[in-house]
């Protein structure tokens, strides 16, 4: 039988027990309030370097991670991977297929976890951050986060990363134009994967777009490089790793890494506050609005604003009551 005793799990976790890590990930994923209890047991935070990988489905993100993580492990690095796929909004279930591209990763230095987005309030970014912390506490040097490049929430996850790779492939020429703004905004390194299928044209096109993006480069001083890879043969992966370390060095020297990490913690703090307050309101105040108030809304939807205000007022007066 598996144990859910927290003390026991944490003791095992500290001895680098992979099952304890796996179980703690599940517990934190299932219960947002648990993370605080877990991290009480750790006092010396260590920083892992977080690499975010995004791009449309099928461009080879998981296959690329398979190469990247193996090479980094050969250099002696310990690596934690999180691959996120969407949950079905209808059933809540998910099909997590990233592992089939990562058969080269089963070894002591690497831990890979598939995660469903579980769409609910704040779910995605919250658990991802917590699991990054958990990997760090476990002693990982590098955390790699794979997301599907679609939707606002993905951008949120990417705020987690120190270096962001945006993956493209040959044949997506038109969509590059559409993505233009997005690419320049979030990609620290642009990867054109599936080099065996071409991609020279896109690489050139991206270079041209980047050359035009003087404004952006002015802000950080970093001109994102374009790297062509073949994630099946491993061609270009060494160059990609070199560019990752170049970017790391750049943002360290420019003080950007420090800023990013502070921003990340601030975002997390705000997310936690929102979560706690919303939880309180939903548990203690929302149930007390009588059916009539809901009926008011159904009868005249303009009332929705008033009802929200009255819930807020109830919350506020409860707060005042507590103070005195």
């Amino acid at each position: 039988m598996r144990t859910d005793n927290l003390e026991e799990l944490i003791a095992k976790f500290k001895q680098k027990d992979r099952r304890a890590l796996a179980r703690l990930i599940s517990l934190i994923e299932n219960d947002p309030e648990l993370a605080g209890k877990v991290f009480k047991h750790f006092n010396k935070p260590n920083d892992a370097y977080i690499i975010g990988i995004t791009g449309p489905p099928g461009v080879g993100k998981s296959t690329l991670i398979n190469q990247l993580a193996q090479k980094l492990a050969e250099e002696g690095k310990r690596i934690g991977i999180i691959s996120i796929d969407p949950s079905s909004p209808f059933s809540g279930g998910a099909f997590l297929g990233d592992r089939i591209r990562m058969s080269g990763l089963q070894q002591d230095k690497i831990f890979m976890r598939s995660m469903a987005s579980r769409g609910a309030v704040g779910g995605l970014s919250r658990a991802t951050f917590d699991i990054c912390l958990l990997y760090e506490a476990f002693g990982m040097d590098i955390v790699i986060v794979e997301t599907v490049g679609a939707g606002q929430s993905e951008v949120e996850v990417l705020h987690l990363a120190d270096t962001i790779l945006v993956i493209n492939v040959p044949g997506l020429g038109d969509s590059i134009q559409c993505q233009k703004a997005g690419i320049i905004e979030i990609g620290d390194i642009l990867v054109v994967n599936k080099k065996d299928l071409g991609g020279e044209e896109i690489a050139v096109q991206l270079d041209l777009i980047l050359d035009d993006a003087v404004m952006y480069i002015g802000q950080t001083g970093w001109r994102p490089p374009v790297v062509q890879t073949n994630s099946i043969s491993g061609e270009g992966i060494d160059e990609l790793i070199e560019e990752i370390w170049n970017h790391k060095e750049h943002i360290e020297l420019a003080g950007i890494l420090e800023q990013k990490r502070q921003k990340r913690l601030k975002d997390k703090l705000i997310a936690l506050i929102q979560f706690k307050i919303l939880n309180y309101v939903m548990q203690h105040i929302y149930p007390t609005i009588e059916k009539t108030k809901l009926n008011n809304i159904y009868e005249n939807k303009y009332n929705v604003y008033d009802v929200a205000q009255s819930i807020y007022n109830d919350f506020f007066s409860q707060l005042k009551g507590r103070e005195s």
Partner: protein
Amino acid sequence: MAGPIRVLMSKPGIDGHWRGIVVVSRGLRDAGMEVIFGGFQTCEQIVETAIEEDVDMIGLSIHSGAHIGYTKRVVDLLKEKGLNGHFLLLVGGAIPSKDFEVLKEIGAANVYGPGSLIKDIVAFIKEHVKK
């Protein structure tokens, strides 16, 4: 707090039959489960994946005729790691009914041969996963 049921769907050994595992995986997803699709994996990889992904159930899809050997190997590896009974183990595929009891004795919680219904598999998992 219990989250969704997590399952690992794998094919130990290489045979060409993908349809079964894909259809069942979709069915489990549509029943609200998080399906980690392992595809072709060695028995060692299956056990390691089940640990990392902290799944509740391991599903083996076997069409090569070697279902007894593979199932036994997975169960032995689980025993070696002290994980006997930790995961609900289901075996499916081209399995003659005469072997059902053998597989159950080895450690499969249930066996699904040709003609099995997804709704029965879902019901069985929901009933037997300890949440």
